[in-house]
């Protein structure tokens, strides 16, 4: 992200464990846009996404002792919390498969080049890379990561065989990897 970091992840973790509210404030300033972006992608409703973001940061504050650096970076851990909390909220609101299907239709519209909507703040110029993904591959990543669909659900929603979901998911991620490499 654009801002200069003055703390390493290890220092942030140590500060959170020491209940340092300044560190928490710093963490919020630097990571809240990414985590809020995830919540918004999952839920779309700004008020609920705001509630989710608060819940995410309280979880980070209260569960920092459970963070295991051997499993990944702090940011990855926080992203997982944000995604899971947002998806739980989505499910608790009794969104059904039909809702996901509606979302797919809406997304399909958004991915038409002439209808492309730039909803995001583009820190790293990555949105272009993401937009270059084929429509089907982008939808599959969105459904899996942002809507928390299982492989079976994706197969049903997109009306494709289960085996195709896995290969398409892998291809999508590989293509995304290539596009990101070109951009960075």
């Amino acid at each position: 992200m654009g801002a200069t970091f003055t703390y390493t992840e290890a220092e942030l973790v140590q500060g959170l464990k020491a209940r340092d509210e300044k560190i928490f404030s710093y963490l919020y300033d630097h990571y809240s846009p990414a985590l809020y972006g995830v919540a918004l992608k999952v839920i779309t409703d700004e008020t609920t996404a705001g509630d989710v973001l608060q819940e995410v940061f309280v979880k980070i504050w209260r569960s920092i002792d459970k963070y295991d650096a051997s499993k990944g970076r702090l940011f990855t851990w926080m992203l997982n919390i944000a995604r899971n909390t947002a998806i739980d909220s989505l499910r608790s609101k009794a969104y059904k498969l039909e809702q996901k299907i509606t979302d797919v239709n809406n997304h399909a519209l958004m991915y038409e080049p002439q209808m492309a909507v730039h909803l995001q703040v583009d820190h790293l110029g990555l949105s272009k890379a993401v937009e270059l993904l084929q429509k089907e591959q982008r939808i599959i990543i969105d459904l899996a990561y942002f809507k928390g669909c299982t492989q079976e659900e994706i197969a049903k929603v997109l009306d494709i065989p289960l085996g195709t979901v896995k290969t398409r998911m892998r291809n999508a991620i590989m293509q995304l990897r290539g596009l990101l490499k070109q951009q960075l």
Partner: protein
Amino acid sequence: MDINRYISSGVLESYVYGLLPDEEHSEVEAIVLQYPEVRQVVNNLQHQLEDFVTSYAVTPPPSLKKQLLDMIHNESTPEGEALLPEELRLNLPPVMAPAPSTLATMPISKKKNKDQIWKMMAAAILLILAISVGLNLFFFKDSSDYKGKYQRLIAAQQKIDADKSQQSNQTASFRENESDETLLHDPAVIWVKTSGYGRHESGAASLGWDKNSREIYFINWQLPTPPDNKQFHIWSVTDHQLQDAGMPEISKFNTGKLQHMKRVIENPKGFVITLEPKSDAASPNDAEIFQTAKFK
């Protein structure tokens, strides 16, 4: 294990993007710890995911940060606890915890007996209802002659009542205003303005607590009129315990007017105002926190 084959199988992509069921997820975690080359791939994929997600970053509304800092700053106090989302609270009992189901712990034979009693009672009620309907139909003809006279009497009575209440209302509201005015400036009454919870605006209501009478007073400023099936509910918070402080009337007619709520035994540390369904069967999750207030 053929690690290269494992890496190219696509399982690691699905792991990082959260597509694996729990058991497979744990399997991958174990393999990641065991094989550095797998860990490297996962690490790269995580980096890639972070970049991907960052492209969707949106700055959240500025008000969220202050609320959040208040939450964590006060997290060790009951009021701070009350500000937290319910599932994240450590000490506070959930608002309106549903009564434990006695049926669930009842031995089967007892349950059967109880079922039978209910069945018999239901049958008896239905029988009484049928008789009542029959009698109603029977007496309906006789009563219709008296109906006209009765309605005229009711209309006359209502007119007298209306006249009376108009007279008494004028003096009562004056008296009420006079005593309420005193309460607003009474040093024995502590007044606080409520803070907004979540997206709700602050200062939607004022709450007062009378140290002498232990009565709670409530003034609505901006709380919206609830839908017919919902009601606002005031809870006082004392030492991790919630106490029912009553349900205020919210309408456009009593905005700014002082309402007398329940007495509380303990000194309140704070208050929570929730909007909840009127039904007893509603779950605690249906209660939405609108306002909170802290007593110093």
